[in-house]
């Protein structure tokens, strides 16, 4: 059972802003998602190889350089930056 407080807490941890009027819808949606994920517990594991369920092997990439991103793009989502670095401030 997902509560409004759970959603507020998760939003805070994920650094997401959720408006007051969105909370009820969001709480119901989160509840549905968790319920859906729960259905996996009903599946039988008998005779199933989980290690390689999609039968894919050796999905490789060739060793060829592609230009990296602009640093401004890389740092765009950082909370704090300085001198081209991500910055983690001293905790008091």
């Amino acid at each position, binding site marked *: 059972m997902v509560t409004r407080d759970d959603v507020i807490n998760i939003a805070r941890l994920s650094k997401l802003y959720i408006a007051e009027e969105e909370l009820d819808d969001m709480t119901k949606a989160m509840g549905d998602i968790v319920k859906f994920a729960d259905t996996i517990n009903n599946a039988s594991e008998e005779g199933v190889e989980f*290690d*390689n369920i*999609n039968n*894919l*092997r*050796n*999905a*490789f*990439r*060739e*060793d*060829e*350089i*592609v230009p*990296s*991103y602009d*640093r401004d793009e*890389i*740092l765009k*989502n950082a909370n704090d930056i*300085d*001198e*081209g*670095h*991500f*910055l*983690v*401030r*001293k905790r008091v």
Partner: protein
Amino acid sequence: MQYEMVAGFETHVELATNTKIFCSCTTQFGGDPNTHCCPICIGLPGVLPKLNREVVRFAIRAGLATNCHISNISKMDRKNYCYPDLPKAYQISQYDKPLCENGYIQLSNGRKIRLNRIHIEEDAGKLIHKRGDTYIDYNRGGVPLIEIVSEPDIRSVEEAKEYVERLQQIMRFIGVSDCRMQEGSMRCDVNVSVRPAGSDKLGTRTEIKNMNSITFIGRAMEYEFNRQVELIESGGEVEQQTLRYNDAENTTSPMRGKEDANDYRYFRDPDLVTIEVSDEEVDELRKTIPELPFEKAERYVSELGLSEKDAANIAKYRKIAEYFEAASDGVKNPKTAANFIIGQIFRRLETEDDKESFEIRTTAEQLKELIKLIDEGKIKNNLAKTTLEKMLDTGKPVTEFVSESDMADLDENALAELCKKAVESNPKAVEDFKKGKQKAVKSLVGFVMKESRGKADAAAAEALIIEIIG
């Protein structure tokens, strides 16, 4: 009581691929902070890592060169820990199905240091601590690493140093890494414990993290060994912990209590599919493993007649070994080439890095021409040495410095003439010699060598001079 050291190594080696392990950013060392980055290597949500084929090949080659069994099936796992150098809060590594297992490295004393495994993983970013704040550069994040895990088979500091050196040489020879410890492309965690000599039980170990110099590894192990012995002797117990080595004070200090494997909550990375390597592919890669330095050194001794020390010194560096082989190929006496390399050429290559990059102006072919003239008796050793110096200074061939007349043999009459002249023009030396100062004759021989521009046979000249003085 006598104590014995028991040590094992976890060695991280950065692979010399062009791109990172899961994305196409460059692995180049340095660069402005955070300019070799993309959403994959800074761990943004929703991105899909894709394994670099070359990483798998390099790791298999490292395994083959260290006598490992290559697993046909292996997989990638997530190792969870929370620290800012790891933007995803997990490192993609290999847990229970590494690529390579059960290898060994043999030391010169014949002991085999067993390797438990070699697995592939991603490097973390670099943290710079300034005024209590932490600056993060993710350029190194996602650079491919192999971690080489040894069994606790090492029994002394000397064995430890040789183990690291051999590992370094092997990885350089097969070209999977430059293993520059000062740039961090090779780093060692060292596990040390002590036990009463002769016991076969393992004592409680401590782990010294992130050592990046062979000298410091030796000092840190020495310190840690003594610290543990003193602790036990005074009735204490060694605590299992992770240590940091402080090179300025030559001490170790605790970093944190040792986390158990369980704390990392390893689980399979669902984004990366199974790695399957066929026996054919392994055989193909086996063919690319060149003759390794110790194999070369052994051959130089048994087939070319070099001393063990000279052989080891030449075989240690890939480029120098290749140069020596080219310069001595088909000459009468390969030792001449070895002597020139260890004498005249090594004097110009002071540091290990100089020897590793081996940039000199004289080609192996040019050196061979010089050696052939010695083989044919056309020039004497002294002249050859000074000529080689000139060749090394300029990069020009031997014919630029040695003329036909230099090469013409000094006939007996000419030699006798020069010896006579030496005796006549150096009465002081002759007097000294007559008084019993044996060394004085050397200056007379020197005179002859100088006059003949190095062509005279020094031994013959000495005999003649002594005869003249009577």
